[in-house]
């Protein structure tokens, strides 16, 4: 294992520093700091209400954090302060996410969902849609390329035969996979960081197995992953690092095996006498 000092800056993709999110009197996330490394799967776990999804919402621009910083580090570029960017700019800087409750565009086909994700590339090529209407410019080639990318991810998620079905008509497991595929299409060459909010929720064991394989493929493809998950089987199997939150605070940050035996983590999950301390 690398010593902590070496972990610090070199391979970092996401840096969360002293992040605090308050809703009125409620502090949902309380001075949380951690880093996610490039090319790794970092899992974020914790009991219900620990602040995991709130943290995600801060990272992806749904919420503006009350305090603290979130920085995205990309090789050969200056760090990007995500907590200062508008939502669509966060996406453009290479962060993609999925939702606990699926948020596909139900009225559009599976393929169209993936094309919407490639909006920026296509929009630039279409000369502001004027070219697309007239059939001019580089647009046809760009659209073919976009469809190619979409087909690749439909294939990877076993959805190729459902490409033209409305997303809302797909079975639950397929919708979950489509959401991941859409996130993967959202930046040219795949996003730098993929944030998944409980991707295994509601999946049967076989589907979870497939999901784990898909996530490992994505990691091998060069996308770092930040994962919220309750399915410990999946977490322990694929994560490189596990960050544990409880009541908005970080209580552990270690390799999966170490986290599993950490008494503080066990206490948080099972409850403990005199929890107030």
């Amino acid at each position, binding site marked *: 294992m690398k010593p902590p000092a070496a972990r610090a800056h070199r391979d970092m993709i996401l840096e969360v520093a002293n992040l605090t999110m308050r809703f009125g009197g409620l502090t949902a996330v309380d001075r949380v700091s951690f880093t996610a490394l490039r090319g790794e799967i970092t899992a974020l776990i914790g009991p219900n209400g620990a602040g995991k999804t709130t943290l995600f919402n801060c990272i*992806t*621009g*749904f919420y503006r954090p009350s305090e603290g910083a979130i920085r995205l580090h990309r090789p050969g570029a200056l760090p990007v302060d995500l907590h200062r960017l*508008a*939502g*669509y700019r*966060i*996406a*453009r800087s290479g962060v*993609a*996410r999925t*939702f606990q409750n699926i*948020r596909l*565009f*139900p*009225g*559009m086909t599976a393929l*169209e969902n993936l*094309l*919407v*994700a490639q*909006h*920026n590339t*296509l*929009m630039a090529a*279409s000369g*502001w*849609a004027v070219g*697309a*209407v007239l059939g001019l410019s580089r647009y046809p080639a760009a659209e073919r390329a976009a469809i190619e990318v979409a087909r690749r991810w439909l294939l990877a998620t076993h959805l190729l035969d459902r490409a033209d079905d409305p997303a809302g008509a797909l079975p639950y497991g397929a919708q979950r996979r489509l959401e991941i595929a*859409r996130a993967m299409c*959202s*930046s040219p060459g795949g996003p730098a960081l993929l944030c998944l909010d409980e991707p295994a929720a509601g999946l049967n064991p076989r589907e979870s197995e497939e999901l784990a394989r898909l996530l490992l493929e994505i990691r091998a493809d060069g996308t770092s992953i930040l994962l919220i998950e309750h399915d410990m089987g999946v977490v322990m199997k694929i994560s490189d690092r596990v960050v544990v939150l409880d009541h908005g605070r970080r209580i552990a940050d270690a390799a999966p095996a170490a986290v599993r035996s950490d008494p503080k983590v066990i206490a948080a999950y099972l409850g403990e006498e005199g929890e107030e301390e």
Partner: protein
Amino acid sequence: MAYALQQLINGISLGMIYGLIAVGYTMVYGIIGMINFAHGDVFMIGAFIALITALLLSAGGMLDGPAAILLMLLISMAFTAFYGWTMERVAYRPLRGSFRLAPLITAIGLSIVLQNYVQVSQGARVKPMEALLPGGIEVMRDGGFVVQLSFTQMLIIGVTLAVLAVFTLLVTRTPLGRAMRACEQDRKMAALLGIDTDRTISLTFVIGAALAAVAGTMYLLRYGVIDFYIGFLAGVKAFTAAVLGGIGSLPGAVLGGLLIGLIETFWSAYFSVQYKDVAAFSILVLTLIFLPTGLLGRQEVEKV
């Protein structure tokens, strides 16, 4: 029979104008869930810009032939689109995220502002314009009654179909159209995928205003008389059309426009001209009571 056929022709050309305006209502409603009550006045602005262009051309001695009409159409679309963009920027964007009623009230205020602005700057008197396309073709002769399809009506039907075809292509086949549909279904998610939702909404207003400008120009050519107040009645009727077709549905808006145009025309032909507006608005009431989602509208599904 011949009489009815004539009314059918009149009704369709009137309905096309309503349809073009209704598309603007339904598009804006689809994307931000708000009825843009100033949209009728945008149509009025479009008619005025077309008229001003015609007067300028006439002063230069060039008000002649299809090129002049095309120029009127394009200039009106360009300027009216700019009005649409400004309107969204100034009056609606600052209110995004506030309570639902706020932009609605602003829309009504904006409608009054536009009317008075045109009244003050252009005068309150009605503005006549000579017919640019006199004449027509005789479709049928039944005794003394001649069924006529005027060139203006042909122009209205032709231009409207062409504009709607391009518009349909834009919405279904282009990244901009996909972005618009995505914003309509889940705006936050669209932003997360890198779509600049503010810009997409702006463009929706721009396109809606351009379509209203086409309607305004066609209205001017057909009736030859406009004033600062035409936007109100046309706007409310187009709104009725959008509701009848199912608000949020684009084909519904066109269908609703055609139906309102036909109902109004046939009502004035067979019952009473004075009560034609009553007929059109009774449809609004009946639709809201018995068919709130409209003919082609989707059932609203509330999600938590």
